[in-house]
């Protein structure tokens, strides 16, 4: 299942209003590393249904969002819980690294 894309408004709602524990991948269409990491999240998603959210931000469509987190590259995985930022992972991230981080946050 593909990841739900967030616009700036959607981002506010999911992260800050709902405080959902989740990971947001900041990505762009032409980035080859992103194309490797997105499927990793897509496959993990069903396993964490109703427990942990998986979202997608396109940095070309929503510039303001990446500027806000002063990101310096894609892909970046940003983790959130209760409206708080819980760190990020950059570059070619493997499945077990994501799962480890999710486990930490859900603890």
């Amino acid at each position, binding site marked *: 299942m593909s990841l739900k894309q967030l616009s700036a408004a959607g981002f506010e709602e999911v992260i800050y209003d709902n405080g959902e524990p989740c990971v947001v991948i900041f990505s762009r269409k032409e*980035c080859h590393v992103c194309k490797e990491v997105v499927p990793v999240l897509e496959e993990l998603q069903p396993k964490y249904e109703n427990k942990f959210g998986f979202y997608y931000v396109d940095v070309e469509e929503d510039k303001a969002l990446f500027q806000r987190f002063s990101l*310096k590259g894609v892909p970046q995985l940003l983790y959130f819980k209760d409206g708080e930022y819980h760190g990020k992972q950059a570059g070619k991230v493997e499945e077990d690294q994501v799962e480890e981080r999710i486990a930490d946050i859900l603890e």
Partner: protein
Amino acid sequence: MANSYDLIIIGGGPGGLSAAIYGGRAKLKTLVINKGAIGGLVNTTREIVNYPGYGQISGPDLMKDFKKHAETFGVEFLKGEVTQTNFSQTEKKVVTKKGQEFLAKAVIVACGSEPRLLNIPGEKRLRGMGVAYCATCDAEFFEGEDVVVVGSGDQAIEEGMFITKFARKVTVIVLHDEGILDCNKVSAEKALNHEKMEFIWNSTIEEVVGKENVEGVKIKNLKTGSTSELSCQGVFFFVGMVPSTGYLKDSGIAMDKRGYIPVNELMETNLEGVYAVGDNRVKYLRQVVSAAGDGATAAVAAERYIEEVNDFNNNVLQSDKKVLLLFFNAQDNESLKYRAALEELNEKSGTDYKILCVDMATKKNLAEKYAIKTIPSVVVLEKGTEINRLEGLEESLEGLT
């Protein structure tokens, strides 16, 4: 078996996709296993101007055309990363990270290369925080900032110029003496005259500095040995590539110490039925067009090899009659005379052997398998097992009567 193929191609770049086109067209049941986006590293190239027939095209667009072409010939695609292989049997096995197993009669290694790391302090830690390897992906994040580019090959200089669209200034760190760049002349001239590009010669970088994000680099002058610091917000590394063949370390495939696989003209590795193409093999030119050529060669070689294996299974190993496997040279008169004599003898003596001729010029694998040294030679097989061997005409004729 559902997971059994004639040909498995590991990698979906230009080499792998060209092999897939040839394999599919030859009616081989062909599977391409690719871990990322189809197209491989070609996807990182914004503009390709030297692939014949395409005046100018983007890397991803060209690769889409390659894939579409392969699909018209019925090639199957699987997204996955091959992590294990077993090439010791006639039926070769590849296993993906998720544990899916596939069998094939022949395998083409076409998994390309990845950016080389300098392994200097800060490089890994600050990856994605200012350390970058792909300008298409990340240049935009450095709007109005200072960026350092390490390297002076085509990629470094061309990507460096692309980064100037966003960055305030791009400083290129070059190993060589002033004015010498490794890239093509057209790009070198443009870059050297570019108002936003600066060059630091005879130098390399020792460390990427920064707490959360990149704040600067330590530059070492190789001539004077002196070190200086340059403040910047981004560092792009373009210091060459390394083949992504690490997963084949224990496969038995011979590699050089950098991980490149030596092959012969047919793209054959040291293992029967296993081929290596494009960026995975030892070669002179690493371009889309040359990778495509490799793919075609490997697929045709694989096709002939598979035909040989199938033939042998059907006509020799599963034959009810005893088989005389005659190794000979079809262009040699003596060999032809010998074959005639052998056939005549078989008929006269009523021994009813099945005679199978193996031309040494085209069936090298079989000759190797039976360690044939001289021609003509005859191997006598019963249900696939060697029961006798006869060398030279006289001996053969005696042996059979």
